[in-house]
């Protein structure tokens, strides 16, 4: 395994570890997006270097008057005009993000002991106090609009840093998504680049059985965006596209992925991959065994 492959492997392994420890988790999202996150945190995102991995704190309160705001953006080292923003739109991917932060040396491993523990900021579905979360997303479709606003502001100020967005395919069913694409193209937000995890599944099952989005690339192009469609597990392609020069319109990288990638055991759950909860000790033992074989690889 090369470095990025190890990162992707580590993301899957950590996601499985915590799905096991909490008897539930957004596991298939780690399988489909491990390479996307590995490429992003490994090679694509221009982030400020951290001296050492940060520790996640306890939940200290929601943003409010007279209360200091705790922000997950610290883990991305945000704030420098030349650095990128990273916006995770489906907050249901928080576990994948946490795993990626550890693999990238931006969050300490011990912080994951507080994952899904009452009173911790390392929540199952994160908000902007959670590690790596720069804004509050997860009410689906809102991430891209907020990212566009940030991109607009950075464009006005002439900053070189980009706004990099990670999205899921399901959320693109919402009207707001298309309003955002319309606006981002109209305002020529070339400094925004979105990776969409096209794993083809949502909570109710296969996307085409819930609400069709295809031909997604053609629809986006018709709206005026620059669109690339790639194998979402091809680290080279994901990396190269993320490092390519910007256009004068937003770029969408549609990443076709497999929700069971690297964890064949998940295929037994077809067509429901959205959230994994073990229904019997036998099932859990099977995943535990799979985890043990993953750990041996390292």
């Amino acid at each position, binding site marked *: 395994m090369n470095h990025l492959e190890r990162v992707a492997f580590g993301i899957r392994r950590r996601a499985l570890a915590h799905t096991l420890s909490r008897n539930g988790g957004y596991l298939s999202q780690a399988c489909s997006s491990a390479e996307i996150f590995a490429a992003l945190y490994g090679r694509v995102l221009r982030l400020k270097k951290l001296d050492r991995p940060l520790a996640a704190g306890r939940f200290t309160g929601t943003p409010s008057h007279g209360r200091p705001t705790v922000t997950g953006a610290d883990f991305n080292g945000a704030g420098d005009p030349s650095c990128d923003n990273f916006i995770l739109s489906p907050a249901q991917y928080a576990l994948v993000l946490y795993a990626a932060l550890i693999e990238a040396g931006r969050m300490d491993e011990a912080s994951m002991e507080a994952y899904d523990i009452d009173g911790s900021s390392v*929540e199952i*579905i994160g908000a902007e106090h959670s590690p790596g979360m720069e804004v509050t997303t997860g009410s689906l479709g809102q991430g891209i609009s907020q990212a566009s606003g940030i991109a607009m502001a950075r464009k006005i100020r002439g900053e070189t840093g980009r706004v990099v967005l990670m999205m899921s395919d399901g959320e693109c069913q919402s009207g707001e998504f298309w309003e955002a694409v319309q606006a981002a193209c109209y305002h020529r937000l070339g400094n925004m680049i979105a990776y969409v995890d096209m794993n083809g599944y949502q909570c109710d099952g296969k996307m085409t059985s*819930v609400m069709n989005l295809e031909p997604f690339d053609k629809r986006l192009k018709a709206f005026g965006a620059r669109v690339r469609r790639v194998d979402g597990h091809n680290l080279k392609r994901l990396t190269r596209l993320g490092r390519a020069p910007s256009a004068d319109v937003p770029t969408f990288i549609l990443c076709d992925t497999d929700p069971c990638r690297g964890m064949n055991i998940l295929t037994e759950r077809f067509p429901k991959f959205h959230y994994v909860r073990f229904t019997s000790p036998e099932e859990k033992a099977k995943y535990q065994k799979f985890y043990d074989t993953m750990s041996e690889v390292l």
Partner: protein
Amino acid sequence: MEILTKVHAKHLVDWGRRHPEAYVLSADLTASCEADSFRDAYPDRFLSMGIAEQNMIAFAGGMARQGFIPLIHTFAVFIYRRALDQIAMSVAYPNLPVKMFGFLPGILTPGGVTHQAIEDIAVMRALPNMTVLEPGDATEVESALDVAFETPGPVYVRQLRGEVSRLFDKNEPLRLGKPRKLSSGEDIVLLTSGICTEEGIRAASALLDKGVRITHYHISTLKPFRHPEIVEDIANSRYGAITLENHSVVGGLGSAIAELMAEAGAGKPLRRLGLQDTFAHGASRRYLMREYGLDAKALIAAVENVTGERFAIDEASLAETYTPTLHSDAKPEAL
């Protein structure tokens, strides 16, 4: 106490058999909102709408104009926050019979701020033509659909899912605008709704053993809300009223009773327990109920505060001794 599972799911299938004009509309949370059994039983009357709530609500308005009964199923938070203008213009204004079932209200979800409907009652109560219901146990979960159907116009139901306790006799269903009087006493009037009623029962029983007599009402209709009898009880009480709700104290049950008290000139103090004008975060239900003061312990503390007494009721005895048994409003003493 009896604990039931998937109460809404079972009733929906049974009820759906008798109502061929009813269609379930779902926004990618079908099993999570107990509509999967209906989908499997009547696939032709199940409409998958994708993660697109604004369209779903106005689409339902269109169907309702044509004589169908759309039953919206998704998480509570995604109904009123994501599609409020559509609810107001395409459903409430034309007074159409769209019945909206919003699941995991308040802090029932560990999904954090994005998933927690903490001001839904406030928002929905403010819409003309809207009826707002909040079941508090399995009996009410079973009967909310019937009440929603029989009530003209749009109805918003803050529905419970999964494991639900049965607090009320199954032969005494939820009735529109009818509070349940669970106990009588001259010291304090307590009003609770939803999952907080079980907490209220626990606290009131423990306090009775300490000599505090409480008139306890369970409220399952948040709108319409006209209760001269409750206001009279409050006016006649020694210490006034306390409300406890799984919702912000702004605009919900506490505000509704405050409005009635003010209009009637009932000059007694009112204490509103609930989320104190704050968003919440992701954690377990029990933890959040403690953190934000939505449980029996918080209620006892509030009673200690208004009476100026200390009762030394410990937590273990609250959980064990005061877990409510089957009861009905006809037998308040059985509590």
